[in-house]
């Protein structure tokens, strides 16, 4: 499968972490880039990625129809990251937290698309009962802790979730996803420091989709190789192709094993690309159509998985069957989201506090 580097920077394979001793996980990844998925596993990854893609496309349509309001950040193009990493976790045991571009992570975690879509349309059946919206979704039963709108906040909160795993000695870990934009927030480094100091079981995942809103990485970051940014805190870094689900999974396995063994945090940089705008109201003046088209044509994670499946001899009909099934699921979730009632007005005053004083 195609190796995708950063579009704005030379692919940094040659100069990974630089600092001696902090690139051993990278070396392990380089030595074993592709996860040896069974056909069934790869089909499952494919199905999940297609679900995210179709779901997000539909969300974009509903936004255009005025059924979804406010901010809506789509995950199209980045599917392999959430799917590859989530598949390496113990569901319901390990914690996950992310920012506002959160639909894809929830779908990758197996959360019902209906309640996600109903949250997008602001309905009572939504996962946050219509009070959160696109950016604020949670599922404590899946140990999915949101869904946070302040750029970078999920990194400190994720370190706190990791702290609770360590405190409870439950063997769990936390994955905190954030973007290349969030990677410039101060609290990220405060959290790196404490996570390394206390050996917290956390995987920091920078989803480098090349743009913080409209600002390209090279225009915002003195050090564009985000996986190196843990070196000052002795956190090993990994520079991963985020457009190939098998590479993501291979890297995730290495990181999970290291963190679960009690060695402290890992910083993974997942190089990927967002096809759509930052949010639905993004004019996309900061990049060319050609650049986006090139990524779609040559580095698409779903296409890559499809090619691999065909190479393995999986029948094209089988993939078409999956596509059809997903279209059906997404269609049903959209119908559900459109036809569910809005929250009762009395809900305005509930859930402000847990207790009555």
């Amino acid at each position, binding site marked *: 499968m195609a190796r995708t580097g950063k579009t704005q920077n030379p692919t940094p394979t040659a100069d990974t972490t630089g600092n001696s001793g902090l690139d051993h996980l990278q070396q392990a990844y380089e030595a074993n880039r592709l996860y040896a998925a069974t056909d069934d596993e790869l089909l499952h990854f494919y199905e999940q990625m297609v679900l995210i893609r179709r779901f997000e496309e539909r969300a974009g349509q509903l936004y255009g129809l005025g059924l979804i309001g406010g901010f809506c950040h789509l995950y199209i193009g980045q599917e392999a990251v959430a799917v590859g990493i989530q598949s390496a976790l113990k569901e319901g045991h390990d914690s996950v937290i992310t920012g506002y571009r959160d639909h894809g992570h929830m779908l990758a975690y197996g959360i019902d698309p209906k309640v996600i879509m109903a949250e997008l349309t602001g309905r009572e059946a939504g996962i946050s009962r219509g*009070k959160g919206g696109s950016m604020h979704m*949670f599922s*404590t039963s899946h140990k999915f802790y949101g869904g946070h709108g302040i750029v970078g*906040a999920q990194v400190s909160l994720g*370190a*706190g*979730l990791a702290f609770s795993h360590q405190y409870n000695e439950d063997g769990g870990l936390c994955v905190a996803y954030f973007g290349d934009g969030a990677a410039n927030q101060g*609290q990220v480094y*405060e959290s790196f420091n404490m996570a390394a100091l206390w050996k917290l079981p956390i995987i920091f995942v920078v989803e480098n989709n090349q743009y913080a809103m409209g600002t390209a990485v090279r225009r915002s970051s003195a050090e564009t190789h985000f996986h190196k940014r843990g070196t000052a805190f002795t956190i090993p870094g990994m520079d991963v192709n985020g457009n190939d689900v098998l590479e993501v999974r291979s890297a995730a396995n290495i990181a999970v094993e290291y963190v679960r063994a009690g060695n402290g945090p890992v910083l993974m940089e997942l190089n990927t690309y967002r096809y759509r705008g930052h949010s639905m109201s993004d004019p996309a003046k900061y990049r060319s159509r050609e650049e986006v088209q090139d990524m779609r044509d040559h580095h698409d994670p779903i296409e890559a998985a499809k090619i691999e499946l065909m190479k393995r001899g999986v029948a094209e009909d089988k993939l078409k069957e999956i596509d059809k099934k997903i279209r059906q699921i997404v269609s049903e979730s959209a119908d559900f989201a459109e036809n569910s009632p809005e929250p009762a007005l009395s809900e305005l005053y509930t859930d402000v506090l*847990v207790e009555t004083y």
Partner: protein
Amino acid sequence: MAIELKMPALSPTMEEGKLARWLVKEGDEVKSGDILAEIETDKATMEFEAVDEGTIGRIVVAEGTEGVKVGTVIAVIGEGDVAAPAAAPAAAAPAPAAVAAAPVAPKAPAKPEIPAGTNMKHSTVRDALRDAMAEEMRRDPRVFVMGEEVAEYQGAYKVTQGLLQEFGPKRVIDTPITEYGFAGIGTGAAMGGLRPIVEFMTFNFAMQAIDHIINSAAKTNYMSGGQMRCPVVFRGPNGAASRVGAQHSQNYGPWYANVPGLIVIAPYDASDAKGLLKAAIRSEDPVVFLENELVYGRTFELPELDDHVLPIGKARIMREGKDVTIVSYSIGVGMALEAAETLAAEGIDAEVIDLRTLRPLDKETVLASLAKTNRIVVAEEGWPTCSIASEIAAIAMEDGFDDLDAPVVRVCNEDVPLPYANNLEKAALIEPSRIVAAAKKVCYR
């Protein structure tokens, strides 16, 4: 010529200390930089160094003496006589006005939360807070405390003294100086099911962390449709201390009280500090618990109960009266009580209400008092604009207009950043005489 060595002030608010140990004896030669003695303040044990050379002529205050006032001669270098030491620590120079409130609070009317006949002991607010945390940590293994200098240093203001020794480093955690980060970690740990107590060395530094207090802790339960609990307590000293300048002297009560999703508590005395901190730790909601450095060392009555927990959201009538209601909270309560004594001598019978909880605010108690006295003065150690005092004025107008015989008067700090100079600082802060004047004004006296 003899050089007098005086009890040093080792912190901005120190008024007295214990001469824990002499490291020199009479006749010893000392030079600049030698450590002469160990002095225990309410915050820490500090070493006292010589700045002059000479022979220790006489040790005036013996080691082990407690309550040695700042400025007392404790030893003499060289020959010559000095005045005899003060007979008793209590006889030393008067403390500044703000701190002069009676060290033991006046008897309060019986509170429904404390059963009649309960034995009372005396405790400082500092010890009451520590005991509250220790009791809750014994009761619930999920409770832990984190913050700057809470463990090995024993607390920047000694509030966490002894907790490390009892509970160990897993549950009493020194953090780096990184408020935004550790407030986020504490909030995340609460989301993960623990019961963190996050200490800010002062709430001034919590400005670095206010995003997590408001955006992460206060709003997530609502945003998640009730799925996400965040039972965290943010606590630490709040408000003006003593001549520490503008950046270290601010009352954040109105800031946090503005935010739905938060509980905001600002106790005055030891009983409330303990009973409400225990309630805060047990609450399923995020709590901002605002203490006051100048009150930490004051001694009050504390009920001797196995489990002294007070209700959140209930004000307390500290002194009953019929002519005017003085509403206050935190350090302002001491001033209000002092003002009430002065007013009583002039024939005005003031009722003093301690709000105790700023959010949710106990409107009923305020309005019931207004219905009785028909006059309200609000005393608040903080800025006047958009203050708790403003809120009380609005409540009185919206819900008690017909009971008002005079406009509500706010007695607040001056609307300026707090200055350093002694006279300017004093002029900027509220004091009992201003409360007295305001009460007379609303009584048309």
